[in-house]
């Protein structure tokens, strides 16, 4: 197993005492595509970021076990974590507009990521960057390599981010809402691209999203989180067989084209879900 998590908790100190954002999450991840779905504040991003120990400074993190390929993430030195972050596990964020450096060309940024993790010359790095851009299915990789982020569309920008994360040839990708800022047509293209790259390279993928139907379409299995806990795990095709009332509520309250309803069912939150 690449990632093993047992009884993970992430808490934040507040004037009213500790606030628990992740409460006893356990999961394992191999070379597979796993989705984590939940609403804002459910702890989905914190859970995934814990694997890289990339949490806000005031976060308190505890777990019976939290390992990445056998490395104890909670006790690893910062240097050991830096050898994981980016190099062995990449993180793709929501909006390329804010994640790319606006004053560096796309090619230079990818080349920088490549050189940071692999030794090579500038020239080698730049040609690797063009090659990576071609791999993320950019038709004219040379032109895009010379473009600045503001000259790229949202979908192109996200492809550049993915190319950058692929540069060190990581074993795992965490994609945190990678397509929420994109149009529906582009969203499908980017997810298909991610799916294809992950399968071809035999990588592990954690896809974090609030969109349950979307995630189950692209992942092997889906974890549904509510208030810091995993309330249900589903095989991708089993969406219609969801058991937990929260999961069913998430599905029911979506307006759909195929099953119109005059009024949308509203989620009634059962306090028992919290225990």
């Amino acid at each position, binding site marked *: 197993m690449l990632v093993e998590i047992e009884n993970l908790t992430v808490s934040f100190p507040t004037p009213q005492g500790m606030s628990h954002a992740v409460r006893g999450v356990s999961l394992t991840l191999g070379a597979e595509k796993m989705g984590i779905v939940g609403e804002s504040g459910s702890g989905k991003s914190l859970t995934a970021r814990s694997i890289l120990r990339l949490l806000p400074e005031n976060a308190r993190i505890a777990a019976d076990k939290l390992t990445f390929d056998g490395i104890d993430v909670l006790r690893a030195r910062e240097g050991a974590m830096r050898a994981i972050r980016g190099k062995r596990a990449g993180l793709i964020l929501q909006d390329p507009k804010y994640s790319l450096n606006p004053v560096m060309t796309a090619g230079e940024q990818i080349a920088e990521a490549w050189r940071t993790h692999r030794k090579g010359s500038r020239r080698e790095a730049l040609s690797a960057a063009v090659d990576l851009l071609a791999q993320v299915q950019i038709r004219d990789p040379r032109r895009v390599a010379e473009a600045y982020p503001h000259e790229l569309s949202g979908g192109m920008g996200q492809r550049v981010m993915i190319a950058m994360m692929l540069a060190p040839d990581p074993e795992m990708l965490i994609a945190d809402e990678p397509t929420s800022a994109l149009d*529906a047509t582009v969203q499908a293209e980017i997810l298909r691209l991610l799916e294809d790259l992950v399968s071809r390279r035999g990588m592990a993928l954690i896809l974090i999203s609030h969109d349950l139907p979307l995630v189950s379409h692209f992942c092997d299995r889906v974890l549904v989180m509510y208030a810091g806990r995993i309330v249900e795990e589903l095989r991708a095709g089993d*969406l219609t067989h969801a058991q937990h009332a929260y999961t069913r509520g998430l599905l029911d309250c979506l*307006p*759909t*084209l*195929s*099953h119109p309803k005059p*009024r949308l069912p*509203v989620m009634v939150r059962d306090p028992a879900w919290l225990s």
Partner: protein
Amino acid sequence: MITVDDLRVRFGETEAVKGVSFAVPEGSSFGIVGESGSGKSTVLRALSGLNDDWTGRMTVKGQVLAPNRGKDFFRRVQMVFQDPYGSLHPRQTVDRALSEPLLVHGIGDADARIARALAEVALPPAARFRYPHQLSGGQRQRVAIARGLMAEPEVLLLDEPTSALDVSVQAEVLNLLADLQQRRGLTYVMVSHNLAVVAHLCPMIGVMQGGEMVEILSGEDLRAGRTTHPHTTELRALSTELEEA
């Protein structure tokens, strides 16, 4: 109630809206869908009076709209924006945000009106003296809708009103919008990139691509797959593909 005829909007060299026409009957809803850059929000901004640089002909309740609108127009037509974080003043309480339209339009009886507006959008009375950061995203959007209703408008222009919200909150806000429409006979024009959301609220839908409204069709035709333009077909396929997963 609303007619838009051959609306064109230019930003410098580029024409962002290239001759868009549609009509909305009183008490009904018209939805505009399209991807980013298709010009859907630009249509709404021209209609709302936020952009006065346009050509064409637009009417609201039979009155032809001039580029510069009178005060009465801004009472009768209100707009709700996508992001309630951005559209509510962070240092003003809900009470202050809701009194503003009353002050602007010289409407009295503020106290009772605000209390009523809060009840109408199902916010607790205690929310009245809170600041936006003390409310959840869904509550904030309810405040933005309540503010839009303060001056008793006839038309609400909704620009992606639920895109920033969780799906469970989106359902609540869509239900609220449907209730308000029924109760007050409001006319809506709603812009969204989400076809299912638009089709839920609007019986007629216009699909935009590259500044043109490439197709206007009814919700039933859309659901049944009776689309004529390839872009509509594509958007519909993307939306239903996920539903069937």
